[in-house]
């Protein structure tokens, strides 16, 4: 029932709504074309009629006629341009179809709409299409990942001959979380086989299985039935040598803990290191422009997928934000959880100045892969401490290469030399402490697998080398210091 008070309130609300729309551009207004058509058209026709100049009248007549024709169908009412609901979580490997609902009132002709470009990051270009009522589908298939706006329907609508226009309006945004891509990695030196409990690799943890792991000197706490008397006698027991015991593997799957260093995100240009990169990690840049965090996240996702495919248990820890710890697990759901957690870690990058790897978060016997550009001593010390605790630690260097000196300063080359020397000393120190260092070639030009047209997965030399080395290191034997990979 409409009371006078209700009518007054609704009228007030309507006026308020109109005022807000005027501020946001969501209203119809005349353009310069309308003023030009009226002024020039009427002026020329009137001048021609008054001065008996048929030529002037004829020149002005089309402007007046088209303006009058446009005024007979002035559009009114709101324009609806909005993205249709899309899945919140998408896989970057799939081509994404997005839809926009367009509903323009009668009398509109031109719609300028911002749509994403296939294969490119960002909100995209403006497309000028006919106005009307339809659902417009577009494709967005970038190589990027992360959380962000995938579609923002900025739009502008105009009537006949663009005499009136509605907008420009900053449209509503559709946000999505795009999971990091999983690059196919080679199967490694050992083919997948049914072994252990589920996975192809057995745990490095000593246990009570029947498979021999190592023979080592007797230590307090060892059971007497584990003593290998034959080896002990050969070693000179009881005269010159001590007792030796046989150590067996545990009946458990191998654990791989990916330790992601999210504290720094740097590119190849040293001049940009002191400032933000200007684009978030994973924004779909070219491989030669990939940042260290982008490379690290892609490497982590690919390694996790490769190990999980063989039934191993994979976990994730963010060295800059340990709260985002994901304990080791197996299966396809774990891969989904891990990729999602990688996005969250990259979003909170740079949160902590010091890396943290708590001992209780690292399972006994787990292999720890530290993915970092190794630009400070703290992360190197962390890797060494983790190795001293008894875990096999592998350092994966994700610094983009080759580094480019800052050309704007005469000290650019000197700084580059210092950075290289510091890193070399740091990585040599890691190797000396038994932590193998594997360069991950994601930041080098052509470093990503599948980048070569027609190439088979895993043919890329850099990734194949790094992945194969990592597999060899984690396949069960403890690496000797002399076999450190550089």
């Amino acid at each position, binding site marked *: 029932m409409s009371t006078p008070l209700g009518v007054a309130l609704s009228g007030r609300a309507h006026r308020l709504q109109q005022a807000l729309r005027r501020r946001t551009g969501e209203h119809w207004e005349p*353009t310069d074309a309308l003023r030009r058509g009226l002024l020039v058209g009427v002026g*020329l026709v009137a001048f021609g009629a008054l001065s008996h100049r048929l*030529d002037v009248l004829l020149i002005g007549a089309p402007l007046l006629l088209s303006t009058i024709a446009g005024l007979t169908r002035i559009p009114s009412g709101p324009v609806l341009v909005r993205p249709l609901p899309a899945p919140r979580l998408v896989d970057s490997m799939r081509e994404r179809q997005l*839809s926009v609902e367009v509903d323009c009132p009668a009398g509109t002709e031109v719609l300028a709409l911002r749509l994403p470009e296939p294969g490119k990051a960002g909100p995209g270009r403006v*497309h000028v299409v006919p106005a009307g009522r339809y659902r417009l589908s577009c494709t967005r298939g970038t190589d990027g990942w992360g959380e962000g706006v995938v579609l923002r329907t900025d739009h502008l609508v105009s009537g006949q001959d663009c005499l009136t226009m509605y907008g420009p309006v900053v449209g509503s945004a559709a946000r999505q979380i795009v999971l990091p891509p999983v690059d196919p990695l080679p199967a490694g030196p050992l083919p997948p086989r049914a072994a252990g409990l589920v996975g192809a690799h057995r745990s490095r943890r000593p246990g009570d299985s029947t498979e021999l792991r190592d023979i080592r000197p007797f230590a307090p706490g060892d059971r007497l039935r584990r003593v290998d008397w034959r080896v002990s006698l050969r070693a000179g027991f009881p005269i010159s040598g001590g007792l030796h015991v046989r150590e067996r593997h545990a009946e458990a799957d191998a654990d791989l803990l990916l330790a992601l260093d999210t504290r720094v995100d740097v590119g190849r240009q040293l001049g940009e290191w002191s400032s933000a990169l200007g684009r978030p990690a994973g924004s779909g840049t070219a491989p030669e422009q990939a940042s260290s965090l982008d490379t690290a996240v892609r490497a982590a996702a690919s390694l996790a997928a490769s190990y999980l495919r063989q039934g191993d248990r994979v976990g994730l820890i963010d060295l800059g934000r340990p709260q985002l710890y994901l304990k080791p697990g197996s299966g396809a759901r774990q891969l989904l959880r891990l990729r999602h957690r990688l996005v969250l870690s990259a979003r909170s990058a740079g949160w902590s100045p010091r890396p943290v790897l708590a001992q209780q978060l690292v399972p006994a016997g787990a292999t720890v892969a530290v993915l970092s550009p190794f630009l400070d001593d703290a992360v190197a010390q962390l890797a060494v401490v983790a190795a001293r605790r008894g875990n096999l630690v592998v350092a994966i260097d994700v610094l983009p290469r080759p580094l480019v000196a800052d050309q704007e300063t005469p000290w650019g080359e000197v700084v580059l030399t210092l950075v290289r020397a510091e890193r070399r000393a740091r990585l040599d120190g890691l190797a000396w402490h038994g932590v193998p260092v594997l360069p991950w070639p994601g930041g080098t030009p052509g470093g990503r697998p599948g980048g070569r047209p027609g190439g088979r997965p895993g043919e890329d030399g850099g990734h194949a080398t790094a992945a194969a080395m990592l597999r060899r290191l984690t396949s069960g034997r403890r690496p000797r210091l002399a076999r450190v990979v550089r």
Partner: protein
Amino acid sequence: MTAQHAVPQVAMEDFGPAVPGWVLRLAIAGVSTAIVAVLGAEGAPPAVQVVFLLLAASSVFSPGSAAPGALGGVGALVSTVYHTGAALAPPVLALVVLVHLLHVGCGLAAVVPPRARLHLFTLYRPLRRFLVVQAAVFALAGLVSVLPDGRNPVTVEVLAVLGVAGLAVLAIVQLRRR
């Protein structure tokens, strides 16, 4: 069938090939230059042509400004100064088309960013209306050409001017109503 199902689903490919938005500016540059060339052919001195070339450049870089109106309107008036031949001479007929084309092109270019993608199917309805208006104006010109020359009665002329003014008032009222 519900109304939701009646909404057609279209893809970008359905709108035909696309050209960059700056192509429209290029077309405006061509039309503006043609207008200046017509004025030059009518006998306008170089200084006037330079002024109109500046207006043409302003129209290209700022199609939503007053430059296109000045180029078309003042250009038409200037042409009357130097035009001494018949009222329906080829330069005049060329200006009839060019000034209208400039008006429509600048109207569209004012809402199309230079880096946008202009899908050619968008131009179908404006082009059809342009042709209809031009056909009507040329029909009027043909009609006038067969009418006898001579001075009209004052009353008829006053009525004609009042009619034009009435059209303008009607347009303003229509706008204020919106």
